[in-house]
């Protein structure tokens, strides 16, 4: 038996992303971001969120985040974060630090188990996930996602973390078919599968759309089935400057250059804010499409380097 004819595609074009966002998320909503730290972050989609001038967003992610969250904060899109760790690893996140210290955003005090447990509970269709850890940490004193609970079998005290249901999840993967079956080729999938199952709406950027027959030939390798995906868009180097292994590596130099602007702005350098906003204008607002963006970050030459670095691993 072969695939039915007349099946609707879930593939959208790059220039339809803005419209998709307009229909699925509003100012103040909870937005979930896939990937972790500098890998598999849907940066092309994040840049469109900024271009849409969305504001007062609540941001959640797998437990590690950095560049994209900092950029969203610098662009004025964020009111609250539910992020266990926010770091560029080699630097702290300047715009995040600045905004939290200035009190312009609320950085909720959460950890990995509360966030992952919240995604897991939502994916499992239950209102909470039990957690048996956390003794002695101040994080639990301030964490808005957790409550104490008593085990009905053993009587032991433990914690419950609340189900998290983002309004929209933005993910990046390496491959998908046009019906929204997603395939990660990277070793690390992080929380992408759980996030897809927990969110009301899911938009995934991929490096490459593959034929449906290719997906069907290897069903074990589908990481997120189409039933959890609302739209898929092919964006070459769509995770840049984060990596999309095994296809291309992390552009550390670009992240460092952003961090230099953002750190100068944080420190109150006279030209700091202007330079940071110029970065956003140049790399986020001005480009009309992904090709335009890639031109601003080194174009084919730089992308070939990142591909080569990934291949050498």
């Amino acid at each position, binding site marked *: 038996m072969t695939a039915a*004819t007349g099946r609707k595609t879930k593939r959208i074009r790059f220039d339809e992303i803005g419209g998709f966002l307009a229909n699925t998320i509003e100012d103040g909503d909870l937005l979930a971001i896939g990937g972790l730290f500098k890998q598999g972050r849907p940066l092309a989609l994040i840049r469109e969120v900024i271009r849409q001038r969305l504001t007062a967003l609540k941001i959640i992610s797998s437990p590690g985040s950095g560049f994209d969250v900092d950029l969203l904060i610098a662009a004025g899109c964020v009111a609250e974060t539910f992020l266990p760790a926010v770091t560029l690893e080699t630097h702290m996140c300047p715009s995040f630090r600045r905004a939290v210290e200035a009190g312009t955003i609320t950085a909720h005090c959460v950890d990995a188990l509360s966030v992952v447990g919240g995604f897991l509970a939502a994916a*499992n*269709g239950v209102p909470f996930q039990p957690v048996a850890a956390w003794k002695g940490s101040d994080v639990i004193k301030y964490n808005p996602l957790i409550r104490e609970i008593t085990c009905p079998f053993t009587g032991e005290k433990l914690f419950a973390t609340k189900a998290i249901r983002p309004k929209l999840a933005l993910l990046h993967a390496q491959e998908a078919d046009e019906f929204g079956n997603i395939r990660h080729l990277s070793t690390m999938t992080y929380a992408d599968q759980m996030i897809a*199952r927990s969110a009301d709406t899911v938009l995934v950027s991929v490096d490459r759309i593959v034929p449906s027959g290719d997906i069907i030939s290897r069903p074990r390798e*589908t990481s997120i*089935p189409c039933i959890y995906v609302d739209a898929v868009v092919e964006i070459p180097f769509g995770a840049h400057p984060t990596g999309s292994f095994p296809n291309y590596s992390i552009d550390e130099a670009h992240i460092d250059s952003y961090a230099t602007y953002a750190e100068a702005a944080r420190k109150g350098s006279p030209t700091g804010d202007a330079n940071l906003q110029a970065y956003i204008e140049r790399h986020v607002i001005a480009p009309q499409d992904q090709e335009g963006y890639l031109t601003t970050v080194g174009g084919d030459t730089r992308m070939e380097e990142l591909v080569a670095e990934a291949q050498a691993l």
Partner: protein
Amino acid sequence: MMTTRSADHAPDYSPAEMQAVFLSRDLTDGELGAAGASAAIPMAAMLLARLRHAPNLSIAGEMFVNPYPKQLWSSMLDDRALGACEAAETFLELFAHSHRGLDFFFHNGMQIDQYGNINLHHIGGTIDAPVMRGPGAANISYAVTSRRFYICTTVHTKRTFVPKVDFITSPGYLQGPESYHAAGLQYGPKYCVTPLAVMDFDPETFRMRLKSVHEGISVDHVIAQTDFELLVPEHVEITDPPAPNELQLLRDVVDPKGLLRS
């Protein structure tokens, strides 16, 4: 209490084919549904619907998404019966289905009662000391997480269609509206489809009601095979037989080995 037409000739399709075709017509494009273990008719219904009028129907059991089997098998939960799939999942998905829920599910039963409750656990005695112990049921959660379900059985006798099941494995409408609402149930069986007839449920009393009899089957025969008072409207239709193109797709593509005719 009479049928509108009668058939002088034996139908050129099997009862199981009639059941599959009827059920397939009730599935809507874009829906998400699943079936349990012994599910040749439900699988045929879903595959036929996907081919004929519902190309965006998603078939997602607990552990796979959108199978493309080359033929029907009596089971639905092994690699043989799935053929190729769009995704392979695990029992973790059992919980995931609780979140977004399903649009439809199919149930079977050793006993089925007038409120559409289903028993797969025991007949006679108690659950701890049964006269006859049944197989049990893998999944009883769909009464809560599936927005409708179908009862589909290959046996329609007084032994299976009883006034009250000895054990409620999966609830239908319990003992009627009061108990149903008190239990916090929101969904229930839409149709009960047997080799003889199609039944639905009276919206006032939640009792099983004859909707149509299959070609060649009399209303009296259905009543005689049912051990509770089946609600029977003035006018009982004959189930619309499989159209040629339905039968052709079913036999050529879905069930080339003729499992539903064996």
